[in-house]
């Protein structure tokens, strides 16, 4: 069933069908929040708030203006910005697992890379980070990111490119150091 059909039926009184939308989009929404605030415990609570807010304002969703996932990401983005305004995030994310390698020094180097990349990601300005996370981890097209952010595609491209430059600089530093 298409998102618009589900929404239509939920608004018509079939509340339980909203479950389909939650199942469909919980992954991308939680991942987006986690990658933005780096706090696994809070991410899920915010994601719940996002779906509640979406449910409460479902009648204002206009399928001619955007698709449901874009609309949901806008809600998530606004919730994240509000949270970041209120308080500095507590970083409780663990580093991603380093895949086993034959060479133990390879593992060490990879860990060091991950550490640096995480650090840079956390310190990126929020606008650059949002665009980068949506493009790199959510694999959203630039046009959709521009819609979510309410800016032009060119602005999105430049934000992503600035973020990537910072990450690339870190990688090249390490390249010279240990690889």
């Amino acid at each position, binding site marked *: 069933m298409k998102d618009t059909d589900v929404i239509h039926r939920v608004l018509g009184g079939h509340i339980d069908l909203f479950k389909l939308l939650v*199942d469909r989009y*919980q992954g991308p929404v939680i991942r987006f929040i986690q990658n933005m605030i780096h706090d696994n415990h809070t991410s899920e609570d915010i994601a719940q708030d996002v779906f509640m807010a979406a449910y409460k304002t479902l009648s204002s969703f206009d399928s001619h203006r955007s698709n449901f996932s874009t609309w949901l990401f806008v809600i998530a983005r606004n919730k994240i910005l509000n949270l970041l305004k209120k308080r500095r995030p507590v970083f409780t994310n663990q580093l991603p697992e380093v895949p086993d390698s034959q060479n133990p020094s390879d593992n060490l*180097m990879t860990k060091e890379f991950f550490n640096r990349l995480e650090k840079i990601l956390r310190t990126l300005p929020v606008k650059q980070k949002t665009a980068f996370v949506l493009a790199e981890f959510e694999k959203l097209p630039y046009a959709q990111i521009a819609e979510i952010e309410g800016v032009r595609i060119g602005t999105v491209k430049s934000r992503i490119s600035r973020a990537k430059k910072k990450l690339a600089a870190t990688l090249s530093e390490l390249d010279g150091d240990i690889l």
Partner: protein
Amino acid sequence: MRRQEVYDIWNKAREQIDVKEDFTDKVMNQIFLYEQKKSKTFFDYRRFVDLISANLTAQAAFVVVGAVVGLTRVVFMFAVILGY
């Protein structure tokens, strides 16, 4: 290991997340609680608008009722003015 490889592994790892199995249930419970609270109020304007906007027949009926009420008012006004 090359730089690009490490970046790709990191990127892939960032895409992985664990969603708790009961996430959907939690959201749906909140929604049902919200609906329960709403149904306790005498007249829920938002729910009324939602129902109207979701149903084409209801929209048409709403417009017809509005038009009839409006016309009746106009006729009544004329009747009062003309002294019938």
